[in-house]
């Protein structure tokens, strides 16, 4: 029997399968080397990178919730220079696509990141985080206003030779509207969702459980919301949609693909099961074989709405 065809294309780049890992949940790839054959993955999206290194928020930074977790890492990262010198050499050798997640607090920072990363070998695309709810400046404003979202997208696209994926915030009234704005701005794809703003309180101390007070909710708990948004956005735009949010099993991944996602990213599940991303790659291949489907394209957008 023929191997089913798992490849997908986003922004002109071919990925060997639709399973990527979500930014901030997979380190810089190397951390998962003991658990996953990295070259079996469709791609790795690395932790969000800013121009200068960032300390991030003070601890405590994470708290578990029902079926999920809150994080207020605050975009801690090594900064662009150390990312290029320390992380890229390893990432170039892992045998899969590397997408770099970028963030900034001004159009200029996004532009510079786009420009500088376009000159680096070994990168297959940029994922633009316009939605992180953790950092007080930057982030939120871009992702919740269509005009700003379009502006950042345009800034990145005009300064980059790489395919640009814009990562959308779910903390909005109408995510389709933002998706359309970003498409108009030139994005080759959108990915969604980033985390939902949430909070938890320690009733013993009467204090917030996160030093930052609020944080981003992720994990299986948010999957229904993410899936609904992916379905809405897939109908609203023509560019490929990458589905993210609570994907933990092969079935979860299939739900997003059926809803119209061309690819998916595995996030919090990497913490629960460090092999999750590879398990899903294998699970999808088995699903195609078991159902005698020739390729993953027979799944994407296959939802039947009677």
């Amino acid at each position, binding site marked *: 029997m023929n191997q089913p065809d798992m490849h997908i294309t986003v922004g002109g780049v071919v990925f060997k399968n639709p399973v990527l890992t979500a930014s901030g949940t997979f380190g810089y790839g190397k951390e998962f080397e003991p658990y996953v054959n990295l070259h079996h993955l469709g791609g790795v999206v690395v932790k969000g990178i800013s121009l200068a290194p960032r300390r991030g928020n003070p601890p405590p930074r994470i708290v578990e919730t029902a079926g999920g977790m809150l994080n207020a890492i605050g975009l801690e990262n090594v900064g662009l220079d150390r990312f290029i010198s320390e992380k890229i050499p390893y990432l170039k050798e892992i045998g899969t696509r590397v997408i770099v997640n970028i963030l900034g607090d001004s159009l200029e920072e996004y532009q510079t990141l786009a420009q500088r990363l376009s000159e680096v070998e070994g990168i297959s695309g940029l994922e633009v985080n316009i939605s992180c709810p953790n950092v007080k400046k930057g982030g939120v404003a871009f992702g919740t206003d269509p005009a700003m979202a379009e502006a950042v997208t345009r800034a990145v696209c005009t300064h980059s030779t790489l395919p640009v994926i814009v990562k959308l915030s779910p903390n909005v009234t109408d995510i389709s509207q933002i998706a359309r704005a970003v498409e108009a701005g030139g994005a080759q794809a959108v990915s969604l969702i980033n985390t939902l703003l949430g909070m938890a309180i320690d009733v013993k101390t009467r204090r917030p459980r996160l030093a930052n007070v609020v944080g981003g909710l992720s994990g299986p708990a948010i999957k229904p919301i993410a899936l609904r948004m992916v379905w809405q956005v897939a109908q609203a735009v023509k560019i490929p949609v990458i589905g993210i949010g609570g994907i933990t099993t092969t079935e979860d991944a299939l739900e997003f693909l059926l809803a119209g996602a061309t690819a998916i990213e595995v996030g919090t599940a*990497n913490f629960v099961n460090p092999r999750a991303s590879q398990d899903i790659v294998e699970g999808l291949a088995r699903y195609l074989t078991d159902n005698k489907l020739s390729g993953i394209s027979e799944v994407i957008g296959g939802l039947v709405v009677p």
Partner: protein
Amino acid sequence: MNQFEEQGEIVRQEQLAPEIFRLTLTAPDIASNARPGQFVMVRTNPGYDPLLRRPLSIHQTIGNEQLQLMFKVVGKGTRMLAAMSPGQRLNLNGPLGHGFDLAGKQAICLVGGGMGIAPLYFLAKEILRTSKPPKCVVLLGARTAAEFGPLPRDFMDIGVKETHFATDDGSLGHHGFVAELLKHHLDPANNWTVCTCGPHPMMKAVVKECRGHGWQCQVSLETMMACGISACLGCAVPRGDLSGPYLHVCKDGPVFKAEEVAWL
């Protein structure tokens, strides 16, 4: 990185005290690579409640195949672990983080409080096995004598000559804090290396005592952890001078030199 994910098979489940359990499992890859002070991330259940793995110190390895975890039931995850029985399988990954560093140390004192005792047993075994320090003193604290379970004997059995106890209720040894035992039992003439693990206030007191004497001190820290493998950046702690990037307990620790981290 010598890290492994294994389906450990549970071979023994012991209840040491009302809320304290000791789980023995066969997990050869992890067991044969573990060093004292390292930990594992344990998936306490196949479902989503609780969702995240739980960090637990390696209490000891037995031969090259088995490892033991000692834990206190404090919430959902540990309650589920306590309900497991021999024959069942437990998914865990490790060994994780950096353990204690005792290369070339001459006089070593281990100070454990509550579940902080767990990794110190592994450490004591290793000290006695690999080197012959002129001194290895163990100081253990708990709320009551019952909480120690069989540990006092266990430490004796492996050849620790000098063990002292402190309990909050005076039911065994010193009536008070374990940190107070340092000045009672450590000869200031020696150049002690103190290794401590336990509740934050206890370790803070130990660090202060050591600082007063100019003794080296290694501390094993606990924080909330989502991944245990340096991917989530959730386990940040401030550096000793409060500046620069945060340290990450799962990667830079859990054992730190006391002066590396801040004591707020």
